[in-house]
């Protein structure tokens, strides 16, 4: 089928709800109205109100009860309407979801998914635009996955649902509907923890994920005479060190692009990983193109915050001509 990311997510949910009757979908406005972005449209009609539920306005209870259900052998797929409202439930992710297997020595597990749209660029209100994947990626035991294409959105979401441990599935809402591609019918999986090479090249490795992936590809297309290798990280944690280090070993140069603020952002971890493993192959300092160390501005100025292609192009050019 020809699908946008939102169609692909919807399709994945239908497929897994059909495949496994221990799955449940719940969150704010997901049932009756099909989700504020329509990601869960049609699920209530197809699977009924025992398995598709609207919840109260309680992020803590949504994530916390997902952990409880999961320990009882269910496969909860919870939605947090915007990732800006996940912080109250951060406690449940840190205190319970991520470590339940560890602290019960494997007696209890939490095979659950928390889906949440993230990122700027849709002219929403305050707290609707953040990118905190670095913070979530810092929690041991929590898988953090970010698809950037319809194909991956479906395949990775199905992997997340089938995963034996908790997955935070962050969806780049800025590109929810702006790209289409043909994706397979029925269930298929794309692995978590594996980056994808979007474009092969020899001059420089450019790593990105989510909505920034597309800005990165645009920037690379604009640059004549630069043979860039573009890597879509796809999973923040666990990190696919091998794909990155292998590419940098080949190119000797690297640029990391993310929308989140710079300081403490995930690019830092990538730089450290490259230093650990392939420092002596580097021919130039690694560049980071990121959001600034400020909250995402309100809508009239949010475009200034987002790393657009010209910024990415400048960084690539600087790295290549170092």
């Amino acid at each position, binding site marked *: 089928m020809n699908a946008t990311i939102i169609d692909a997510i919807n399709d994945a949910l239908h497929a897994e709800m059909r495949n496994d009757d221990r799955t449940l979908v719940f969150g704010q406005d997901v049932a*009756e109205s099909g989700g504020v972005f329509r990601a869960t449209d049609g699920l209530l009609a197809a699977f009924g109100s025992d398995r598709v539920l609207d919840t109260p306005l*309680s992020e803590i209870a949504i994530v916390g009860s997902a952990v409880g259900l999961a320990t009882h052998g269910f496969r909860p797929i919870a939605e947090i309407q915007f990732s800006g*409202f996940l912080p109250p439930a951060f406690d449940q992710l840190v205190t319970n979801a991520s470590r339940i297997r560890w602290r019960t020595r494997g007696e209890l597990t939490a095979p659950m998914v928390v889906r949440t749209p993230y990122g700027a660029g849709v002219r929403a209100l305050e707290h609707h635009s953040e990118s905190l994947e670095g913070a979530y990626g810092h929690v041991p035991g929590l898988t953090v996955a970010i698809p950037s294409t319809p194909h991956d959105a479906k395949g990775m979401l199905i992997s997340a649902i089938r995963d034996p441990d908790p997955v935070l599935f962050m969806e780049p809402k800025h590109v929810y509907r702006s790209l289409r591609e043909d994706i397979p019918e029925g269930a298929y999986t794309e692995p978590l923890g594996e980056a994808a090479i979007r474009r092969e090249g020899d001059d420089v490795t450019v790593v990105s994920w989510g909505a920034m992936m597309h800005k990165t590809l645009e920037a690379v297309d604009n640059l004549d005479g630069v043979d860039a290798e573009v890597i879509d990280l796809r999973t923040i944690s666990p990190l696919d060190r091998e794909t990155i280090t292998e590419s940098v070993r080949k190119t000797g140069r690297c640029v990391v692009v993310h929308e989140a603020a710079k300081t403490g952002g995930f690019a830092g971890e990538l730089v450290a990983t490259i230093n650990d493993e392939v420092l002596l192959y580097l021919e130039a300092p690694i560049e980071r193109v990121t959001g*600034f*160390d400020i909250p995402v501005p309100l809508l*009239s100025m949010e475009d200034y915050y987002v790393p657009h292609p*010209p*910024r990415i192009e*400048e960084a690539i050019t600087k790295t290549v001509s170092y």
Partner: protein
Amino acid sequence: MDDSPRTVPPAAADIGVDPLSQGDLEIETYRVVRSDGSFDAERVPDLDDEAFRDLYRWMLLQRIYDERATKLQRRGRLGTIASGHGQEASIIGSGYALSRDDWIFPYGREAGALLLHGLSMRDLLLYWRGVEDASRMEGANVFGMAISIGSHIPLATGKAWGLELDGEDAIAFANLGDGATSTGAFHEGLNFAGVLGVPAVFFCQNNQYAISLPFDEQTNAETVAQKALAYGVDGIRVDGNDVLAVYNAVSTARERALEGAPVLVEAVTYRRSAHTTSDDPTRYRSGDEVDEWEERDPLARYRAFLERTGRWDAIDEDTIREEVEAEFDEAVDAADAVEERGIDELFAYLHEEMPPELERQLEELRDLLEERPDMYEFIEQRPKG
């Protein structure tokens, strides 16, 4: 060897355990004016004719503001907005009962109350245009909008604590919806307010929905007001489409709060518009239900009261309407006239003094915009007022 029983026998009925249940409570919904305009004379607040007229004027202003702002949004000149259509009596009745020294913690639907409190309409429009500068809420004791639902409730508790410690004659007044009562922040904030005995009023407009979720699915509690009892604070349930009832309820709550008893007020009303300009309510509720509530229109009810008490003749609705429309036009013009904002705005105010790294990042953005003017192709929305 563990010999505890593997099965538990059912509890016998006659052992005298009688659970406390919400059915034991009798909760009155306070009302002054009935839907036909008849009223309880003893409950009519002691206001002068000008104040009675004012209440009508402000409700009409709220309605016109919402209509006009929605139109502006449709033309792309505001971001997402949330209308108070149908909730005018709750918004204005509560706002009118506050002193300018009180602090309002808004969450987005209460334009009229904020304007009453001294905020300029220009700034309110600028806020919904996403202009950072307007978030100051200049000239009015108004906190930032609690877009993260419920997040402001403990804040109001803390502000009230401060007011009390300083012996000020003012309260913290938190506006919230029925959905907010399901957040952890609500429970913690209310409980702590009760423990401290601070001058805070928590004003919940129960408009029957949190986006698509009807109130009876938001909570198994029959009312919001009863939740107050769990924290040992007072609760009032009031007809939120009766402006005089809301005014009395909030005036009373305010007095109680100043005496050290925080109060949770539930105003029972209805959101007749979509949740926001990005919502389609036909997906989750029937037109009949909306029609039913239209018959309980707060302006019509208050007008009926004014007519019955001979006050309507002195009110020239057309003139008020014209005045309000003109006020709105002026506010839009003033917002349009605000100068374009510079990128310094983005980096300012995060710290009292900008750390060197942030200064460096600002410099970097400045240079980039100069060297790569094609950046502006990606910046559709300029920070103009």
